[in-house]
Every structure is written in C-alpha cells, then in structure tokens.
C-alpha cells in the first residue's frame, strides 16, 4: 500500500476551513492516548489543559498576555514566509527591540515626560528592524542564507542583553543583581481593564497588526507583490517586482513587529530589563505563523491556542501532576497535524493498494 497525491484542480474551500479543526481534533485524540498511556485520566487532563484556563477571568487576561507577543511576532513573520524569506531570528529581534526601547527609561531615567511610551515603542520597533536588517543585508547583497544568520544573531542578542543588565545598565540601587531599574510609571504600558487582570495594551497592538496585515495583503499592491514573489520569484521579476526589495521590506517589517513585541513585553509585563526576557516567544511564534497558515486572522486564533497550551500545561502540572513537558509535546503534535491536514487543501490523497511497486515515473 502506498499513498499518492493528486493535485486538485483548485484549492479545496472545505479543507481550508476544516483542516485546522481536524488537526485540532487529531491532537486531542493523540493527547488523550498519551495521557492514558501515562496513567492519567485523559478527560481530566484535557479539561485541565484546554477548558479550565478559559473558565476564569484572570486566566483570560493571562491568555492575552501570553498570546500578545506570539501574535505580534507571527503576523510579521507571515509576511516574510509568504515572500520566501526565512527569518527565524525573531527571538533576537524581540530582544533588540526590548533593548532599544529601554534606552529612554533606563539610560535617561530622570527624564519622565507623560508621553514617554510613544518614543519607547517607536524605538523598540526601530531596534527590531535594525537587527533584522543584518540578515536582510547579508541575504540581499552577499547572498547569505538568512535562516542561519538570523538564528546566529539570536544567540548574540541574548548574550548582549545579558552583558547589558549585568554591566552598564545594572540598577545602581539593586545590590548588583542583574537587572535594570524598574521603569518609571510613565514608561509602563498600561493594563487594558486593570480592575479584572493584568493584560496590557500589547494584545491590542497584536490585533491591530493582524488587521493591518490582512488589509495590506488584500487591498494593496505590496500585498500582491508579496504573494507573487512568494509563489515564484521568476514570475515576480517578470512583473517588475524586485525580490531584493522584498527581502528588505519583509525582514524590516517583521523585525519591527518583533521589536514592538519585545518592548511591549518589557514595559507591559515585566517592567524592567532582565537577563532573560523571553521564554522563546520568537521561536514559538514560528509555529503560530504556520498554525495560522500565514493568515493574519488564523494567526490570532493560533496564538490564542498556543497560549492556552502554556497555561493549560501549567494548570495540569498543578492539578493532576503531569509533566511540564506536555506543553511542548502538544505544540509539536498540533503543528504536525496542521501541516499534514493542510496537504488536503492542495491535494487529494489516494491510497493505492497494488501489489507491484510501480516506479514513481510510470504511476501516471
């Protein structure tokens, strides 16, 4: 028996809508089997992971906090990936955005105008964009593989932040502990509904970014360029679009959004720079981008689902004592199933039960 793919004459509308749901259902089933194998009650475990976090208001706030950076970064990455620019260094751009955005509240601590947040956020975007400009420059002018350069730059950014908070930017009143001063209140991103929880405006930025990108892809020439160049560089060139220009645009754009996510996280959720400011948001956002099938609204949904696995994994650890690694396993499974189900959009799958193993060439 073997599996053969047959290209559909046109994309399947049904599977476009159904594929994430099927994938989610398959993940649930696989998860249930896994829990049963671990000797846990699967229903209890799944309830703790996927339902309980949605039952309380504070926990919904936490969901928004966790989802905000994921969505913001992933929306930017979707532009890169649609145009075939494989920026996987968003984690580094996130960190650089946080560092740039923190220059004002940390280095110029005494300067506290009411509108401090605005330049902070802008500088955060600039920081992220500048850091993404490195792999962009190397790819556009030296033909260097951006997957690897952007990834290497992540490690460098992490160490740079580490050096800053232990060295020049260390809080002079903090007993030499490795962290900067707490930002002054004017430098703290406010909470949206402060009476019920601590979700901050970063989540709103994420939604705005998603809507903005959706608009751009649908109604602007830039959006058209992105899809054309992404599908075929040659076709794009014939249409007079510059692939070099697209490298720059997509990398800077995603870098800026990652930087915005970075400064929002630091000024909203943390309130200071620390040696580690991200539990891998930049990498998880890559999954989010693909789970959302590179569609801005899909990404919002995917970001929320992934955030849910974090919260739920933690809850399940507490309530039924499953390992905290469950979260990662779920994330991996979910992505696997989504990627496999997406095949159904473009192809029909046929199982061929024939005894003789035809060479692939003459299977037609």
């Amino acid at each position, binding site marked *: 028996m073997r599996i053969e793919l047959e290209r559909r004459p046109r994309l399947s509308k049904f599977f476009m809508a159904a594929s994430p749901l099927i994938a989610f259902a398959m993940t649930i089933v696989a998860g249930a089997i896994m829990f049963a194998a671990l000797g846990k009650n699967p229903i209890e475990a799944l309830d703790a992971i996927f339902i309980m976090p949605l039952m309380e208001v504070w926990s919904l706030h936490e969901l928004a906090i966790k989802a905000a950076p994921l969505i913001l970064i992933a929306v930017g990455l979707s532009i890169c*990936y649609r145009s075939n620019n494989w920026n996987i260094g968003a984690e580094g751009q996130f960190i650089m955005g946080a560092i740039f955005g923190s220059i004002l509240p940390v280095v110029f601590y005494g300067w506290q105008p009411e509108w401090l947040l605005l330049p902070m956020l802008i500088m955060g975007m600039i920081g992220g964009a500048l850091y993404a400009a490195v792999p962009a420059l190397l790819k556009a002018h*030296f033909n260097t593989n951006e997957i690897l350069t952007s990834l290497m730059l992540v490690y460098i950014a992490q160490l740079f932040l580490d050096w800053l908070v232990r060295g020049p930017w260390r809080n002079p009143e903090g007993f030499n502990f490795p962290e900067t001063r707490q930002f002054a209140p004017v430098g703290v991103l406010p909470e949206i509904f402060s009476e019920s929880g601590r979700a901050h405006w970063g989540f709103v930025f994420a939604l705005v970014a998603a809507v903005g990108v959706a608009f751009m892809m649908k109604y602007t020439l830039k959006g058209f360029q992105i899809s054309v160049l992404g599908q075929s560089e040659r076709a794009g060139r014939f249409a007079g679009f510059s692939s070099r220009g697209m490298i720059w645009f997509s990398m800077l754009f995603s870098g800026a959004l990652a930087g915005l996510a970075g400064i929002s996280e630091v000024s909203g959720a943390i309130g200071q720079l620390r040696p580690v400011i991200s539990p891998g948001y930049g990498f998880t956002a890559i999954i989010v981008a693909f789970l959302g099938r590179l569609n801005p609204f899909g990404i919002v949904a995917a970001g929320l689902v992934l955030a849910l696995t974090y919260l739920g994994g933690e809850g399940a650890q507490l309530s039924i004592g499953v*390992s905290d690694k469950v979260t990662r396993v779920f994330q991996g499974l979910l992505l696997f199933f989504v990627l496999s189900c997406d095949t159904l959009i473009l192809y029909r799958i046929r199982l061929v039960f024939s005894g003789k193993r035809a060479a692939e060439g003459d299977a037609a």
Partner: protein
Amino acid sequence: MIIEAILLTIITAATPLVISALGELVTERAGVLNLGVEGMMVMGAVSAFAATAITGSPYVGVVAGIVVGALFSLLFGFLTLTLVANQVATGLALTILGLGVSGMLGESFVGQPGIKLPQINIPLLADIPFLGPLLFKQDLIFYLSIALVIGVNWFLFKSRAGLKLRAVGDSHASAHALGIGVIRLRYLAVMFGGACAGLAGAQLSLIYTPQWTENMTAGRGWIALALVVFASWRPWRVLAGGYLFGAVTIGQLHAQALGVGIPSQFLSALPYAATVVVLVLISHNRRMTLINTPASLGKAFVPDR
C-alpha cells in the same frame, strides 16, 4: 602536554557537530532541508542513555541512538515527502516535539550516573607520540565520525548512487525524468540524516557528558545546520568547520581561565559571530556557492500524474 589535552577537548566538542552536520549534508544534497536536527539529536541522546542504563551496555546505547534518530526522522519524511508539507515548518515541529518527548521519556533518568563509552586503543598506532592519543586512543563514535567523513565523501562524489542523490538534489524534475526514484532516495537521505543526528546525540549522553539532562543538546543541532552551509556542502569542510567551531568554543574558555579580562558574554558570542562571518565570506563568492548548493533544496516534489 597541554596542547594535546586542549586538542582532545576540541575533538570531543566537535565530534557531535561533525556527525550531525554530515547527516544533514546528505539530506540537503538530496534537496531536503531538515531543520529538525536538534530534535533528532536530543531523541538520540535520551534513547542512547536510556538503552545504556537498562541494558548496561553503552554499545546498545549507540545503536539505540542511531535507530531512534532514524525513526524519528521518518516522521519528518512522511510529512514533507509524502504529504509535501512545508519543510521549514515541519523541521521546527520536529525539534519542538523532540525536545518535549525526550524530556518526558527521560524524566526518570535525570540525575542517574551514566556509563561512558569505553576507549578503544588501536594497536601500534596508539603509541605514536602526540598523534597517537589524539587519533588512536579514542572511542567508537570518534572513529565512526572519521569513517563517515571519508565514506560520505566517497559516496557522494565517487559512487553511482551518490551521483543519483546529487541529481535528485539539483533538479528533481530531471532526475525523475531519468527514472530515478526521487521520493525513495529522499526518504533514505532523510533517514541517514536522522541516524547521524541520533548518533551525535548518543555521543553527548555517552561520552561528552555521560548523563541525561533535559535539552542537553543546547543548540548544537542548529550549529550543525550552520556547519553544512559553512562547509558549502562538502564533507571534508564539515570536518574542518566542526573542529574550527569546537576550537573557538573551547578557546574562549581558555581565554577566560587565562584571565584575559574581556566580558565573558562577548567571548561566548564569538563562535556565533564567527559563523556569521564565515557564512558571509563563503556565500559572497557566488560562483562557488552555486556549484555546490543543491538547486532543489527545500523544494517539494510531487510527481505529475
């Protein structure tokens, strides 16, 4: 002999990089980009440790690492080759899944003292001054790493099957037209990559630090991916690049121990910065890159029906 001792340390640090990069090199030569090296490596590490702990034989561990690495890569193969899913995303999924699953499987082995793979002295050669202890008083996995470099080089450039493999990587359409089984060859290449990553993982948990800890690969899988490009898809250059990278990693620790007085974070960042620079230098030479880069790298292949 301090230099000899340092070189030995470098070799130990470089061996897992060389092995996993060689595997990925073959995978990429067949036109498949598998970013899941880290995930396969960590699965290899946990299975090698677990098998050793259960059977008491580190050689069983080595085999387990290889087998599990290869099996785990099949998951990637099935998605990207049979279901033509995006290779970048699937590779990342493999890494995440590998880190999660290995963490769960390995929970009961954390903190257990491991058994180290024994040293094998090669008679006569081991007695050569300086070179003997470096090259001929080593463990099985080191010898395998050297054999793999020679073997892969021969396979790719001297054998018929290697020619086919490169043809598949350069243009799957023409290879297909010539009657080469593109998908089958790619499956084999992916599995070879997985087996190598698993072996590299076994080196980590049986030689480098004979123990199991979560995430013990600590980013080495990603370095291996960089090495392949660094080496412009040539086996001997993988060996050289791996040793160079090992030298920089170990060198920064020595610089610290000597009291150089540069912030340690900058020294720690050196290997990554060096990789970027070398990547630029290599890819800057467009002609050279074009000769060696598999032209179909990362592109899905679906035979027309």
